[in-house]
């Protein structure tokens, strides 16, 4: 990265680097709750970049859906699976060197390819995509994908519900089952007792 590239658009670089820093924090800090919050910050940084790209609708979606949805869900998950005995929410990381080798290798490959691919720095098209364009696209060429997406969300919802619920509708409750089993045991024990008396 040279100075000229930076000076072309310093704002982009600043927000971008801050976002990357947030992301690094999200995957390295000790406390899992903090990590989720740092993830939220990184997502907000991305939203800021979206806004900078003049994609305000996407920025709003990013804030609403990602920061408002995913982050909350993840915190929820952390709370639900917090193991009070081991304090597992204080997450440990491991094998940072090995992981860094893989990540850096991938990064080197990407950077090398990016810097060597011609035609990436054409002049921008000039027109930016408006909300209206986006709407037309979603109901035009992407209507098929959009419809399939609705099925996907439904499937995910059905799946998540079926997995997360403790008892299926119509299934006798655990308490009832235990009562039945106890009843059975009492009967058996009672019979055994009568047997003993008989002898």
């Amino acid at each position, binding site marked *: 990265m040279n100075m000229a590239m930076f000076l072309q658009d310093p704002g982009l670089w600043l927000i971008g680097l801050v976002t990357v820093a947030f992301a690094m924090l999200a995957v390295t800090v000790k406390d899992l709750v903090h990590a989720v919050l740092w993830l939220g910050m990184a997502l907000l940084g991305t939203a800021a970049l979206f806004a900078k790209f003049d994609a305000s609708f996407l920025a709003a979606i990013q804030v609403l859906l990602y920061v408002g949805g995913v982050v909350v869900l993840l915190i929820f998950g952390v709370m639900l699976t917090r193991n009070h005995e081991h304090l597992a929410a204080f997450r440990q990381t491991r094998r940072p060197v090995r992981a860094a080798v*893989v990540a850096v*290798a*991938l990064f*080197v*490959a990407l950077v090398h390819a990016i810097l060597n691919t011609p035609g990436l720095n054409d002049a921008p098209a000039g027109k930016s995509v408006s909300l209206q364009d986006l709407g037309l696209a979603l109901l035009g060429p992407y209507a098929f994908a959009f419809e399939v997406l609705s099925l996907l969300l439904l499937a995910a919802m059905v799946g998540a519900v079926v997995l997360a619920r403790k008892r299926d509708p119509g299934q006798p409750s655990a308490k009832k089952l235990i009562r039945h089993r106890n009843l059975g045991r009492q009967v058996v024990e009672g019979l055994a007792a009568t047997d003993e008396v008989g002898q």
Partner: protein
Amino acid sequence: MSPLLMAALATLAIPAGMTLLFGVVPMLRRTGKPAAILSILAATTVLGIAGWLFATWLGNPTESLQIATYWLTMGGQPLGQVGVHLDGISVSMLLVVATVAWCVQLFSLGYLSDEPPNGLGRYFTYQSLFLFSMNLLVLAPDLMQLFIGWELVGATSYLLIGFWYPKPAAAKAAIKAFVVTKFADSGLILGLMVLAVASGGFAWDAPITPATAEIVAGLLFVAVMGKSAQFPLHIWLPDAMQGPTPVSALLHAATMVAAGVYLIVRADPIFSAAVHVREFMTYLGAFTALFAAIIATVQTDIKKVLAYSTCSQLGYMISGLGAGSLLGGYFHLTTHAFFKALLFLAAGAVIHAVHSNEFTDMGGLFKKLKFVAIAFIFGSLSLAGVPGLAGFYSKDLILEAVHESGNHFALFALLLTAGLTAFYMTRTVVKTFLGQMSHSAEHAHGPGPSMTLPLLVLLVPTIALGWAAGPFATLFGKPYEFHMGLVGYTAIALGLGGIALGYLVYGLGALAFLPRLFKPVATLANSSVMDELWQSVYEIGGQTPSRAAAWTDRYIVDGLMNFIGWLTIVLGQQLRKLQTGDVQDYLYAVFGAAALLALFGGWR
């Protein structure tokens, strides 16, 4: 459709129908004896048809008839055929197969008389299946159908080797045969593929360049090495002797193992273009012949002797075909089929009588089993190449051809094999039928008529087929004239010498009255000294190489196969450790590979 083709189709339909009948109606199969008789009747019909066809072809040897339909296509282009193809070669082979199969089925009726009805029915189901498969192979109009027959006879072979499958050795032998021949068969599959890609079909005489012919022939020959038990893929054949003896006679001596030779004869247009492969065949065949003959001299199991002898004789055929003598290789296949089937069936009668395969349980059986012994001795003489008997003529053709091809190594090895063959067959005859009677031999009982009749039938071609070499040669459209050269005389001398030596070692060495007869000599050198002398000469001169060869066979060849197996297993166990169960390690694999892919993609 001509009645000849109808009849040929019937040779396929009748045994196939029997197999289906036994398979679909278990009630019939489980009756045992009635099923056996039905199967034998079917085999008789097939034999009759084969005889009629053969007689027709003797009158008109160059005729060729075919009916076939396309069965496989590739990209809309017709590729494989099914049907029957009749010419001099297929018709004569059909007769050989039908005769031996008929004899073996009849013999089995007596041999397996102790088998429970259920097992007997199963046995004859397999026998019918084999007859169908072998006929399918023999009558194939192209290589693809031959391959189907090839695989089917292989499958029948595993079923029959493992017939007594509760016996662990039998089950193990069946699996060994399966793996080894399957490995070899991949050569056939690859060869077919190359042929299909190069010529757009599987025809015998597909138009291909000599270079392609070398590849195809080389790949096909790998399969032949497996099926026809050539070094180093012969290792399954001795183990295959775990099957019932009539099975060994039919599949592992006379017909199935000869399928490789038959394939080379059929695919002659391809093989004759492949000069280097043929040269290799000459060498390998000769080497196998010698190698197996040496091992045969130290075996103590009568079936193992015959099994190695089969390897050795197949080596003869391969060597002859490599030297360019189509007639020699094929004629030896024919004569060998008869006399080796005879030998195996006679051995079967012996085993049936003494309930053991080991020489130690035999000896002096000549008195008890006169006819069997005579049959076995004639078979041995034919195999040893005694002039006038069938084996002599066919062996001579091969030796002459190898001599003409100028391959001195092969000629030397084959001549030496001729002597050794005579030697070990004499040893077998002596140990089985002459000398001291063992304990179990004293209780031996003679075979019934269903076992004697097949021996009688097989005895005829064993003695007389050599005289029919002339008419036989016309099937190849070649003139035949018998002439004896130096090679022929050498072979006779070696054969007779081998017999004499064998008798000296095993006959005279063991005869107790000999010292008494020559008392003065015996006082000088008592019999035990003679014994030991012969023994030590034999040990140094004969035993050591044989032992070495047997050792090589067991530890090097078998060992190599085992080593490859061991290596795959060890590698598998090492690779398995990568599967740690830790999902993060799996992610490492995914992203490590992704990073490598990306690095490659970016720098390319």
